[in-house]
């Protein structure tokens, strides 16, 4: 009997293994289309751009492998080092301002205010507006003669002369950052608001009973509760800001001099010269910094989990 039973058991195992394998295979098949799309649309262009950055490729000519020549050329280019500084400045300052404004407004809109729904909708307007329209409006507002900002300053007597907001090194970058923050803070605000609404009210009540002040409740309850959302928003927004083109291009085209030159605009100038290898090198040069940012942020998010 045992001799007969054993093969039966073995056959049952094989059937179960086959079933498990079939299930696994089915799973792989289900994710295959998405994986292929990701490979085709994300990984391939990314790797190809890196490859091109090591070639002398120009439009219509595949060029040849030149090693780090494009990067050496860029490193000697004053606009490149300036773009590096400007991109970092823009990302850090914009993120800080968006964090303060976004979080402040989110805390405010999380309170039971009258007309809260309308305020929440209004806050979203800059984000809903097409970027090029928003930055064109800012450019018009900052126009030296007839621009809204100078008119207000003149009419209120705060400043009598013409301020060339976008034409001076001292004001160009702050002006562009102001426009970028205005356009971007709603995303931060709405993300934080959504996170705040998920913080259990009992935590605040317990903190109150323990005698915690509003500031302590913010530090010890609110911030830890929305920390992971803050990290994700900082990560996304930093990448978007570092890669943003239309704000600079529409308002200053990287000028005056190279006061507002950033990587995407520099890459665009490379494209105008048809030198694809150099243009790709400009973009690729930013990748290590972004990878570090992604690594740090994802580690922090993982720690939260």
């Amino acid at each position, binding site marked *: 009997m045992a001799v007969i039973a054993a093969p039966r058991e073995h056959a049952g195992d094989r059937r179960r293994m086959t079933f498990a394998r079939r299930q696994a295979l089915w799973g792989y098949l289900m994710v295959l289309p998405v994986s292929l799309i990701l490979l085709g649309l994300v990984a391939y262009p990314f790797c190809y751009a890196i490859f091109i950055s090591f070639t002398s490729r120009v*439009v*219509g000519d595949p060029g040849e492998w030149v090693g780090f020549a494009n990067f050496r050329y860029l490193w000697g280019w004053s606009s490149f080092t300036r773009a590096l500084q400007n991109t970092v400045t823009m990302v850090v300052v914009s993120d800080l301002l968006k964090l303060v404004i976004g979080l402040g407004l989110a805390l405010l809109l999380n309170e039971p205010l009258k007309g809260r729904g309308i305020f929440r909708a209004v806050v979203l307007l800059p984000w809903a507006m097409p970027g090029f329209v928003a930055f064109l409006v800012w450019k018009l507002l900052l126009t030296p003669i007839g621009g809204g900002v100078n008119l207000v300053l003149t009419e209120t007597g705060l400043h009598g002369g013409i301020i060339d907001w976008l034409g001076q090194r001292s004001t160009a970058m702050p002006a562009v950052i102001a426009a970028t923050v205005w356009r971007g803070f709603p995303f931060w605000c709405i993300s934080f608001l959504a996170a705040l609404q998920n913080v259990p009210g009992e935590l605040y009540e317990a903190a109150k009973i323990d005698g915690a002040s509003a500031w302590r409740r913010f530090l010890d309850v609110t911030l830890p509760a929305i920390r992971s959302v803050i990290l994700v928003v900082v990560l996304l927004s930093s990448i978007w800001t570092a890669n943003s083109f239309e704000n600079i291009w529409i308002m200053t085209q990287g*000028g005056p001099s190279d006061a507002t030159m950033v990587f995407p605009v520099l890459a665009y100038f490379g494209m105008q010269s048809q030198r*694809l290898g150099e243009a790709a090198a400009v973009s690729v040069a930013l990748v290590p910094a972004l990878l570090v940012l992604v690594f740090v942020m994802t580690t922090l998010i993982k720690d939260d989990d």
Partner: protein
Amino acid sequence: MARERAFSRRRLVGGTAGGAAAVALGGGLGVSRLQEALAARTAPAVIQGTTKLTYWGGLIFSDAANEMLEAKINEWGKANNVETEVVMINQNETSQKVSAAVESGTMPDALDLGLDLLLLLSTTEQLVPLDELYEKIGGAQGGWFEAIAGATDPSLLGGARTGIPFGSTGNVLFRRIDVLEPAGFTEAPATWEELREQAEAAQAEPLFGLGLALSNVGDGNLQVSVLQSFGGRIADDAGKRVTIKSEETRAYLEWVSSAYEAGLFPPGATTWDGAGDNTAYLSGQAVFIANPGSVYLALLEDDPELAEQTGFSTLPAGPAGLVSPTQPNVRAISANSQNPDAAMALIDTLADPAFMEEYYKVAIYGPVLKNQLPFEIFKGPVHAGLADLVQNGTAPAEPDTYNAAYAEFNTNFLVPKMVQRVVVDGYDFDRAMDEAQQQGQAIYDKYP
């Protein structure tokens, strides 16, 4: 394949010669009847088998001109039983769109191009040689102007004529007569120093004297011509060694920076986009601007009074003479075109004198062929300036050597950037020139 091409070209020449004869015989016909007759001309058999023909036209400020070009191409397609698709491309974006099309293998059959892009595409063999068509059109219409022929010379373009010029461009100086005459200036300034003198005398904020772009846009490269008229050079005669650091460049920087410090440039001139000077002049913020003519079209439509009060003249000269470059816009055929013969026939049709006479009336271009000079439109104020420019202006890059390095030097706006270093960043002249010299040489070194 080559035989087929030769055969079809003969057919093409034959067909178009018939068309030319029709033009000659049709002197008594009205223009529209003549155009109908030309369009209805029987197409060579090879054209009738053509698949869809795509044309990228260069979008200009005149809607009428854009529509006329599109209508003419479609009319030709209908008459020749060829499906046509016309896409009008903003000329500021042609470079990017063409780059993407070349890389993705989706170039149109034919397209309008500026000289820099023509140079690049020709040297990388992206365009069909059009020497025969160039000779035929030139021969039938009195010959090409010297400046136009020189700019499209095969020695510059990889050994062949790869573009058929259809309009010349260059800068004309616009000036506000209504404010200059009361200030005692009845004549256009002959030199840059005179220009500054007049601008200073006529300036009354918010009206500024010099509406010249100093920013990182094409208009900013007018400063290259100013620099050259002061005797400065981008590179040596061989077009290899950058020579921008010189006493002549110093003299130019002295001129431009002192005018800037005197407040003669409107605020924002260092960050203007391509429409900056247009806007400044139209809104009454500039006494002088230099412009290819698009402002004139806007003036006629939006402010005829200001148009009447505007005087037009050639650019002023510097201590080293007049540098006022003129260059052609051309029509070209992609090497990847499936319909090169049909595209050639189309370009030939678009060079038809009757069509071009009507086209020039609504487009801001100067003539390219000597027989076009008597057209009535070239007696008008701006058009007369453009016609003068094509006869007396300087060749592209002159006194420098026009080559790919020179084109890239200007694509990077190194001269306006050098000026910005001085007027925005406060660099001294030597430091600004050193930087331009070093960056310029780095560009030139890429082209052995």
